[in-house]
């Protein structure tokens, strides 16, 4: 015998399936199709909201989404109509987050329609709730603590640098130039101090660099290191080879603006800027040090294995740094001149 619990579960699954397979096909359209609300946390206190309601014979579902008091729209909302549904998308900000607050679906009581609510948090947690006409609201879970917010930005910082091949290639270029442990420490420290300065300056809004020239300049910094690595391996010298930490500091200032663009892209809650900045920067440092450690471990492993690479293979890292730097420089300059945003 089917229990009420199983029936509820089956209904939830069916509704979920229906929402996934939601197609604008007239033959399948009827008023009991669910509405769909998706809330994705894009930054602490900021959310991407997608609200989709079924449309039958040109009439949309008479249900109005009522967000909690204090929620304000960021920018203009996006509305898309299709034969079977109406989709609205907007970004919102609400102080203290949506946790512990109520979302109402005004008019839902008068329908036989359910609303499927999916919530995704920055921490990766997902929840799915089915709202029925009998209870036309949903109470969202309480907000995350300070520790969870800090963790989010820490992870974002680590991810930003580890997925930022251009930053990693610059660090690799520096590693290939430095000749002693002390110089390595000085160089990495200089890079860290420099990018921390500009990351803070840009995040706090004291200075901004438009993205296209910034990206081109970062690419140029990588290209700059290619010939220096070759020069270093040929036994020649230059200012960069003698004092790589100065170059690391100078270009580190640029890379810091790049990190800032990554941080602001996530979105910064006005109340938590110092914490976000600190944790994001810490995450960048952790990722950077992990990458440096990996390269040093690899170099040590080659020594242990007594690996003797052919000359051409030895040149590969320098070639990769130089050619990718050149490619990105040309590509980004072209984009900048073409007026890409």
């Amino acid at each position, binding site marked *: 015998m089917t229990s009420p619990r199983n029936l509820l579960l089956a209904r939830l699954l069916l509704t979920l399936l229906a929402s996934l397979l939601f197609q604008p096909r007239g033959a399948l359209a009827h008023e009991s199709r669910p509405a769909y609300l998706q809330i994705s946390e894009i930054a602490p206190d900021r959310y991407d909201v997608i609200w989709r309601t079924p449309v039958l014979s040109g009439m949309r579902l008479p249900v109005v989404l009522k967000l909690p008091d204090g929620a304000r729209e960021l920018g203009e909302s996006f509305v898309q109509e299709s034969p079977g549904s109406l989709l609205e998308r907007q970004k919102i900000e609400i102080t203290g987050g949506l946790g512990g607050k109520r979302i109402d679906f005004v008019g839902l009581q008068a329908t036989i329609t359910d609303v499927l609510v999916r919530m995704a948090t920055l921490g990766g947690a997902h929840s799915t709730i089915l709202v029925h006409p009998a209870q036309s609201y949903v109470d969202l879970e309480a907000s995350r603590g300070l520790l969870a917010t800090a963790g989010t930005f820490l992870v974002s910082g680590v991810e*930003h640098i580890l997925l930022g*091949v*251009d930053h990693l290639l610059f660090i690799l270029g520096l590693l290939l130039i430095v000749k002693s442990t002390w110089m390595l420490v000085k160089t990495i420290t200089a890079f860290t101090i420099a990018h921390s300065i500009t990351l803070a300056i840009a995040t706090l809004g004291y200075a901004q660099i438009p993205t296209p020239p910034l990206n081109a300049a970062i690419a140029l910094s990588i290209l700059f290191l290619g010939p220096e690595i070759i020069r270093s391996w040929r036994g020649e010298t230059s200012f960069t080879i003698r004092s790589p930490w100065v170059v690391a500091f100078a270009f580190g200032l640029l890379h810091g603006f790049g990190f800032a663009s990554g941080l602001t*892209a996530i979105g910064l809650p006005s109340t938590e800027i110092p914490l976000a900045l600190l944790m994001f920067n810490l995450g960048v440092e952790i990722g950077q040090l992990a990458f440096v450690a990996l390269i040093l*471990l690899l170099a040590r492993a080659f020594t242990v*294995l007594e*690996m003797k690479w052919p000359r051409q293979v030895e040149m590969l890292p320098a070639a990769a740094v130089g050619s990718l730097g050149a490619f990105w420089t040309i590509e980004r300059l072209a984009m900048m001149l073409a007026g890409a945003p």
Partner: protein
Amino acid sequence: MTDNRPRLPLKPLSALAFGVGVALISSQAEAHLVTTGLGPVYDGISHFALAPEDLIPVLALGLLAGLRGKEHGRRMLVVLPAAWLLGGLVGLAAGAPASTSVSWIPFVLIGGLVATDVQLSVRVTMALSALLGLFHGYQNGAAMEQAGPGVLGLAGIAANVFVLVTLIAAFVITLRADWTRIGVRVAGSWVAAIGLLLLGWTFR
């Protein structure tokens, strides 16, 4: 005649792992991956990192190379990624994954060789590396043909294989104390045990 035997859940697991990896990467810092064009490389890296059926045999091969010595390690760090890449290219072209019902073999074979610490010639170790690389590379290539990352994704996987086998082999070579060598052999026995579990699953 239709083969109705239950299959190992490796392919779905692999597909799931791949999907999770792509989702994780694409949801974060995608701006970087778009501007550098190296997103597919990261797809490959995450695919490998999340696929134990690929990861564990490579770990075991690294242990084997480390136990056998520097010459084995030196050659393996070239042969294994190269074979993986070659197999991947063939898989990309073919597009149809091979049967996963033999996936337990590398676990049992390589794990067993590590556990027993058998003396092997460099040729045998290299043949094993080449076979493993070709088979797993083919599987990855076929999966990527369907999922999208293509050659750059394979390059990401090959780079991962290279780094992993280099680090593991060098680490084992640096182990001097007898008990550490026994520890490595125990790890090999675990890999073999996993293979036996997979075998049991295949014929259950």
